[in-house]
């Protein structure tokens, strides 16, 4: 029962997440193309190393950026 509930929650979140997406054409991506919208790690090299040393967790350093849609 607990697993079924978890599956239902995950499925609902996925459905809500996907339905929240709107199709954005390349010529509509002016805001998305701003360099600050690149979804890579926000920390610089030394800053990231400090966090890695200070925290027992790891991961989450890569992500594909949406960007300008020009290629």
């Amino acid at each position, binding site marked *: 029962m607990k697993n079924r509930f978890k599956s239902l929650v995950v499925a609902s979140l996925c459905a809500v997440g996907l339905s929240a*997406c*709107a*199709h954005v054409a390349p010529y509509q991506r002016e805001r*998305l193309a701003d360099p*600050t919208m690149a979804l890579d790690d926000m920390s610089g*090299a*030394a800053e990231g190393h400090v966090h890695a040393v200070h925290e*027992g967790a*790891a991961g989450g350093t890569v992500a*594909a950026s949406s960007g300008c849609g020009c290629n």
Partner: protein
Amino acid sequence: MRLQLIAAVVVGAAIVASAARALADDSATNAPDAPASRPKTVAPIVAKASLDTTAYTDSDHVSVVTPVVSAEVGDREGAWKVHGQYLVDVISAASVDIVSTASQRWHEVRQAGTLGAGYKPKDFGADVSAAISREPDYGSVAGGGNLIWDFDEKNVIALLGYSYDHDTIGRTGTPFSVYSHALAVHTLAGGITLTLNRAAVLALVSDVIIESGDQSKPYRYIPMFSADVAPTIAKGASISVVNAERLPDRPLENLPDSRDRYSLTARFGYRFAHGTLRADERLYTDTWRLHATTTELRYYANLSRRLMVWPLVRVHAQNGVYFWSRAYVSSFGNGSFELPEYRTGDRELGPLYSITGGLGGSFGIGPSSDPSLLSIRAQADYIGTEFLDDLYVKSRGSVLGTLGLDGVFQ
């Protein structure tokens, strides 16, 4: 070090040359008798270079200075790029862990370099990278790559990545061939990036990190206590109290030989008219039963065409690994001390939380047509860490400051 100096001089000279050219272009454009400007041809190739220096110091008497030089060359539309980075950590430490073993302040230099390339002409692309890091008692070689697919006019992007990291752990002053042990790390990453609307994007990334090998530190000695004394050792107990109460045996750290680590990260970005909100959340767990959450928020505010500032806050919280203990218990039997199989003094494996607050800013000093072509960047962070169940310290305050120069050449 010589390589670093050469690289720094080359990148610095390139940035200064770019600045001079940018300012010359700017003054020519602004001259009252300047002829009507001709349309500029747009260079197909764009190069970027950065010079950074980061300084770190904390209340545990550790200080690090890190100069970083990085460069990237690629085509304007992002179909291909090559990039590289080189950094040096100059470390000076006299932390309580060092003092507690009656050792002197030590100094160490770590050098690390990364080279990478990416090619993505259309909807499908790949990037590869290789990294090497070296310090007197630790070496690391890593390589990996990512595959990236665009779907639905880049409204959905999928990512699949793999990297392998081979670390060699040794002792300062002893060649790796005489004493060392290896640690192998496989990382598999999979993610999806969704364009939510014209101003919002969300990325979900999952990482699986498989570590195998002995990663125990060969300098880390763990104090042991008798069963009746251990409960009396208070959080943050001083070196003198620990030395007075501990048993004579003081074994080295011993960690399990394998660790599987899992993380799920969500990254959200929303672009306002004059600013960007970035929010990251990472949930983490591993087979050492360490569970953690890390949240980071930044707001990049474009105050003018030249000035951007970004306040940031980062909160991290975790429990301790299953074999964590503030005061490990050892008993004497059969003529020797019976030790707990796994034992550690690594504070980052214990329960803790940290809060980082910071402020960064960049000021474009490039030509008025695009001030961001050359910019000065600075950031200062304060990291407050509370150790919830440790010997020697209960908290640590750290200050991290970065000063950088970024140039774009086209």
